């Protein structure tokens, strides 16, 4: 097992991850090497899948993308959460150029082009003390603000 995968596995077995599972914040769906998929609880009972690529973890931040759990594939852009802070973090015009990456400082693809974020957002600087849990909590915080799609539109899409 490579060091990044070993570090990831250790963090996935941590009390912080388990606490989030037990409290219904998220569910670990699957892990394939350094790729790990979670189902996150969002607003109004909606679940949002995310996949994190933890290459180089924890020395560098993961990069992520929204993920359809039923299809085991990237979530179609039409279903991306929008509204509030979600509109900027899940920004199709930017993210689709970078593998669906999240536009925030805990995504290494976004971080690459934004050295000023470390100064502007000192509470969200990726360092060796950060783990996948910090990524999940930031995503949870962002998803709280999302207003669309509604749970109904998601269910219709999944049923079709």
């Amino acid at each position, binding site marked *: 097992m490579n060091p990044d995968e070993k570090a990831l596995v250790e963090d996935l077995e941590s*009390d912080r991850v388990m606490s989030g599972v037990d409290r219904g*914040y998220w569910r670990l769906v699957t892990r394939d090497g350094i790729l790990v998929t979670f189902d996150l609880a969002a607003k109004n009972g909606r679940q949002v899948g995310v996949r994190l690529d933890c290459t180089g973890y924890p020395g560098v931040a993961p990069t992520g993308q929204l993920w359809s759990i039923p299809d085991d594939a990237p979530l179609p852009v039409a279903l991306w959460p929008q509204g*509030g802070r979600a509109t900027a973090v899940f920004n199709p015009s930017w993210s689709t150029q970078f593998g669906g990456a999240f536009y925030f400082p805990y995504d290494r693809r976004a971080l690459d082009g*934004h050295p000023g974020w470390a100064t502007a957002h000192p509470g*969200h600087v990726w360092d060796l003390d950060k783990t996948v849990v*910090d990524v999940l909590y930031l995503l949870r915080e962002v998803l709280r603000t999302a207003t669309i799609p509604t749970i109904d539109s998601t269910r219709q899409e999944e049923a079709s």
Partner: protein
Amino acid sequence: MRIYVHDSEGNRVVEADEAATLADVTGADAGAKIWAEDAAEPLAADATVGVLADRDVAAVHVGKGHITVSATYAGATKSETFGPGTKIDKVLDWATGKDGFNVPEGDGDDLVLRLKGSTDPLDPDTHVGTLAGKGETLALDLLPGDKFAG
């Protein structure tokens, strides 16, 4: 049964039988009280692990007393007293709700709690009794979450 045991220094996880007393399982010092998570009042001194069985999460806080939490938002400060095992998520509900700053629903979703003067995120399952440490008060800021641009 898995129990999350929080105190003024942090938290840990223990496994225990439902018949065991919480005092034994947590190793609480004499004089310390045990609160179920988000509860306003402590459990009975002889409470067993079984009292947590019907809760979503078996989590307790070992502490001495209530925590007075003050939150500052847009220049105003409001205070409320909570059990030390109250999660920061529940305090956020109070701060944005009608007993707090009565923030309109859509606007409230954009707000987060931080330690006063800090920008570091707080885990939503952190207990106010842990954030207060050995003290009896906790000062927080209620402010918009970071927006990443540029």
